[in-house]
């Protein structure tokens, strides 16, 4: 059992499920959004007791959803294009590692924007302040980074 006081998992699903589904659809497309989110929440549930603190749980769920969406892209591409056997189904121990390995392909500014959004859990006002840019520009950097990742996921 976890040593930190984590809230009941379902309360996170109730609080953030809707926006996570929007995020999953944005990452994976309307046809796959629900499958991605269901898988992401199951992965999150598996990893939940190993979290070391109860801060930024919403941002953590966004990261898990992001990595799950990209994994699904890769799996679908393999199915379509090759007979390559699927990668061993190991769950990354820490989603921050998986998240970092995924955003590594992006330019530094895009990586920073995604970390501020999904690791530090800042809103666009906060991101704008940290990057010294306008709120519109902050929003744009995050959405461009997500779009790039999505395209990279498909093309990987």
């Amino acid at each position, binding site marked *: 059992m976890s040593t930190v*006081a984590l809230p009941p998992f379902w309360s996170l699903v*109730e609080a953030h499920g*809707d926006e996570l589904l929007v995020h999953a659809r944005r990452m994976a497309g309307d046809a796959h959004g*629900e499958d991605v989110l269901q898988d992401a929440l*199951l992965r999150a*549930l598996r990893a939940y*007791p190993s979290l070391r603190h109860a801060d930024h749980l919403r941002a953590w769920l966004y990261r898990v959803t992001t990595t799950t969406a990209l994994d699904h892209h890769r799996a679908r591409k393999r199915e379509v294009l090759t007979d390559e056997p699927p990668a061993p189904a190991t769950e990354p121990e820490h989603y921050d590692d998986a998240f970092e390995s995924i955003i590594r392909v992006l330019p530094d500014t895009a990586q920073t924007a995604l970390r501020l959004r999904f690791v530090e859990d800042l809103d666009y006002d906060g991101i704008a302040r940290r990057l010294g840019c306008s709120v519109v520009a902050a929003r744009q950097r995050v959405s461009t980074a997500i779009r790039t990742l999505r395209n990279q996921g498909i093309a990987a």
Partner: protein
Amino acid sequence: MTLPAHLLDALASAAVREGIADAVYTHLPTPIGTLLVVQGQRGILRVGFPEEPEDRLLAQVAAGVGPRIVASDRELAATRDALSAYFEGDDETPALPVDLALVRSPFRRSALETLRAEIHAGDVVTYGKLADRLGRPRAARAVGSACATNPVPIVVPCHRVVPGSGGVGSYAGGPDRKRALLALEARTR
């Protein structure tokens, strides 16, 4: 929340199938109000009356058995059926497994176990007599505390414990519910 029900159902069922759900909960409408029923891997952990704030109740369960708590009517279908049969008078006491993990005090736990095993539907016992059965004749007050803090009312029948001075006495769900349960069991018997 507007997530599709099939997504939530599939998620909760997958969690149960994998054995990673610490507890599953469901809302069950009954003649005495909608109950919140929380079941762990070994049995029912908690039954809540409508007046109890749900977030606090579930946080208490999370602190006791772990935070991987999901909601599912489907996974608790057997439990729901057994409780509904009880309220329809088809069954004297729901024969459901109980897990008293949320009861920390060994005395309170043994009081609740004895109560469940020995005091059957249609019977009542006084706080003093139950203390006698536990071999602690002076512990009537402590038996009262055990009943007042019973995490699994109805299934562990603390409503069958009444004051020696007469009347139904107090009840976590209020005296009206206690009277209703005793009346139901008098009819069922």
